[in-house]
């Protein structure tokens, strides 16, 4: 296959000598005390410099490892041509929310881990480039709204407004269907608004993406808890929805089930982050929602994922005297994005590995005062090959702590499953959906995102949304075709 003409003037051997561009960031000392975005993003010149590094592989590993196969090589070439809007449109062909994924994708496990330059040096900064074109598009107020297919008259209900649902909505509206999104909370965006903090993903960006969808005709209805306010059967039988996509996320917080978890100051990460992000408790009393004070106090976050990093860095910004991560395994096993771990360290977060809380201790008023932990070591590898931590006898210790935030994962919220007859669930309570179409056991009902996979990533949720949109489109087409037995009947008549 011959390569298309390239906009890169440099020979390959020059390109690989170029160093990876460092993205400008807020100073760690300053940003540890504010909620403004940490990464400032590439200016155009840096985006060009970084793009020049790409050697335009024949078989680009970056595209292979992108969960939605964004045509990275073509995007980079358009940046070099100076056609930023074209580059943004190119990303949007496969990824509906580039300004968001460019900020939150675990790229070190995806596109950037597939980049050939990473074999010897550092990979191309693909996420920063994606973010650059998406921000450029938004900041210059340009948006190449694609032309939608003619109206089909079919109505699809999407439940939840996280990335799975937003991606699905974008595709369905494009296919000419009516799209109605139901969200339980008062704000749209799912984890993007209630979980991921402002300093990592400014809410204005999420709001912008939703506005774009609204302008394209998607109807959003907040304050509707499907299963409570209205059921799926009612939506289909009484409100005329032809198909439903369930994308309600993995919303149930897991606690540790150790003594003392009821003390004031012990939070689930979901609650802590919801208060801070969705309810803007960091701006109390301008905003009414209160937060148990972190100011000048010791805060411990239990867990090692993105949620834990977001919580601990929020606590720091709220003025914590000390903000620590307590994780039961070692740093190597921490599921958080590498960049977030670096950022947390630069900001002064303390990391304590191979420890597990066994009890929370409080005073007579019911307020948390300290945590009793036990040290652990990695044991023999289990069936999955992972070495599970085992407690070391007699290694218990007590640390002072006023706020403890538990980020030990989430599970499926049973609300929809328990109110929708005929909807099959997995052993762990997630919704069972077919791998290829995301169809559930209930005709016309599809499901995707964290409610099917368990807590995963933004980009995987978006991929599921797109897959579902395709399958829903096929399903809706099928509704208009005469059923096989009817066709038979006509022939006989």
């Amino acid at each position, binding site marked *: 296959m011959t390569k298309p003409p390239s906009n890169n003037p440099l020979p390959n051997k020059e390109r690989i000598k170029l160093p990876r561009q460092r993205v400008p960031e807020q100073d760690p000392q300053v940003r540890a005390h504010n909620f403004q975005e940490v990464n400032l993003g590439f200016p155009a010149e840096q985006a060009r410099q970084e793009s020049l590094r790409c050697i335009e592989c024949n078989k680009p590993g970056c595209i292979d490892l992108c969960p939605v196969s964004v045509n990275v090589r073509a995007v980079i070439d358009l940046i070099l041509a100076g056609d930023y809007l074209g580059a943004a449109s190119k990303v949007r062909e496969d990824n509906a929310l580039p300004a968001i994924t460019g900020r939150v994708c675990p790229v070190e496990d995806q596109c950037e881990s597939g980049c050939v330059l990473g074999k010897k040096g550092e990979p191309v900064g693909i996420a920063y480039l994606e973010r650059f074109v998406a921000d450029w598009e938004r900041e210059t107020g340009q948006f190449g709204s694609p032309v939608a297919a003619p109206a089909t008259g079919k109505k699809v209900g999407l439940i939840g407004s996280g990335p799975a649902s937003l991606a699905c909505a974008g595709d369905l509206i494009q296919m000419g269907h009516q799209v109605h999104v139901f969200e*339980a*909370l*008062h704000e749209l965006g799912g984890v993007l608004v209630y979980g991921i903090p402002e300093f990592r993903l400014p809410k204005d960006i999420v709001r912008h993406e939703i506005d774009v969808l*609204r*302008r394209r*005709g998607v*109807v959003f209805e*907040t*304050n*509707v*808890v499907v299963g*409570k*306010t*209205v059921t799926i059967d009612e939506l289909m039988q009484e409100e005329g929805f032809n198909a439903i996509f369930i994308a309600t996320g993995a*919303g*149930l*917080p897991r*606690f540790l*089930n150790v003594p003392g*978890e*009821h003390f*004031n100051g012990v*939070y*689930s990460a*979901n*609650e802590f982050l*919801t*208060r801070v992000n969705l*309810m*803007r408790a960091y701006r*109390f*009393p*301008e*905003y*009414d*929602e*209160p*937060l*148990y*004070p972190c100011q000048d106090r010791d805060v411990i976050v239990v867990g090692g994922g993105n949620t834990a990093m977001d919580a601990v860095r929020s606590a720091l910004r709220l003025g914590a005297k000390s903000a620590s991560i307590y994780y039961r395994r070692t740093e190597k096993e921490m599921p958080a994005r590498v960049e977030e771990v670096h950022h947390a360290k630069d900001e002064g977060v303390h990391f304590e590995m191979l420890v597990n809380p066994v009890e929370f201790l409080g005073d007579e*008023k*019911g307020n948390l005062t300290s945590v009793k932990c036990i040290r652990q070591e990695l044991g023999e590898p289990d069936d999955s090959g992972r070495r599970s931590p085992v407690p070391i006898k007699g290694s218990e210790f007590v640390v002072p702590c006023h706020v403890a935030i538990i980020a030990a994962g989430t599970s499926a*919220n049973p*609300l929809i499953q328990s109110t929708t007859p005929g909807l099959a669930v997995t052993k762990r309570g997630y919704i069972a959906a077919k791998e290829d179409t995301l169809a559930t056991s209930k005709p016309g009902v599809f499901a995707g995102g964290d409610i099917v996979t368990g807590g995963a990533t933004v980009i995987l949720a978006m991929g599921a949304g797109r897959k579902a949109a395709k399958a829903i489109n096929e399903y809706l087409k099928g509704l208009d075709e005469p059923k096989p037995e009817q066709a038979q009947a006509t022939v006989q008549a």
Partner: protein
Amino acid sequence: MFEIVEARPLARGIKQFVIKAPRIAKKQRPGQFIIVRLDESGERIPLTIADADPQAGTITICVQAIGKTTMLMNMLEKGDFILDVVGPLGKPSEIEQFGTTVVVSGSVGTAMAYPTARELKRAGNKVVSIVGARSKDLLVLEDEVRAVSDKTYVLTDDGSWGEKGLVTERLKQVLESCKVDLVLAVGPVPMMRAVANLTAPLGIKTIVSLNSIMVDGTGMCGGCRVLVNNSSQFACVDGPDFDAAQVNFEVLMQRNNMYREQERTSIELLQADPGAELKKLREENARHACALDAVEASHD
């Protein structure tokens, strides 16, 4: 955006609102609640649904001004808007034919107990209501309660209306005088705890409706957790009704005090200039209403 179609004072510091919320009006059952957020900077608070009219698409709630949000809410009038109302949340109260039931309620709790009392009566139970308040001017829905009860006792702490005394004293006498199959207690936590202490040794099934602090109301945050039978339960989805004998009221009270300091700050700020807060709410919500109209118009 949810319109207040009726607002009337019920008692000192207690106001009744009828709110347009067709989806909720259609689905709600006694014992369920809503969560409201008054305006853009508002917190989310749970309020029990006191009544509903599915035809008119309205729900009724009774609000006692105790914190910043309820104080501000009670300044609202007919024609005002509430930014967010979501529900119906929680499990409906269990309504069966139990036999003789006693419904004990204190102050604004009476408004919350009333719909359940009414349904208990409809289900064929004998309903004895014991309604209490600190004084006469804090008493609500007395006539409504009388209308659905076989026997009603009204008590005030200061004797300014009905009998002088505590609801628990009256309950004790009722329990001694006849066989009771179910007790329902709704009101301040100390009152519910006192009822539980009375009925638990007698083995009488007793239900309390718990008012823990909530955020989402869908099981997502765990902030509403209460200790029931020594295990953590989420009041918003597992409740709000629980078996009184198993509830740890101490922990409930401690958790309900969690944000005391902040609550005081908010109240002070509101009281410094209540008019300004009200004006801000009205202006903001009017802006939201305009924006919504614009979106709807663009879809037509």
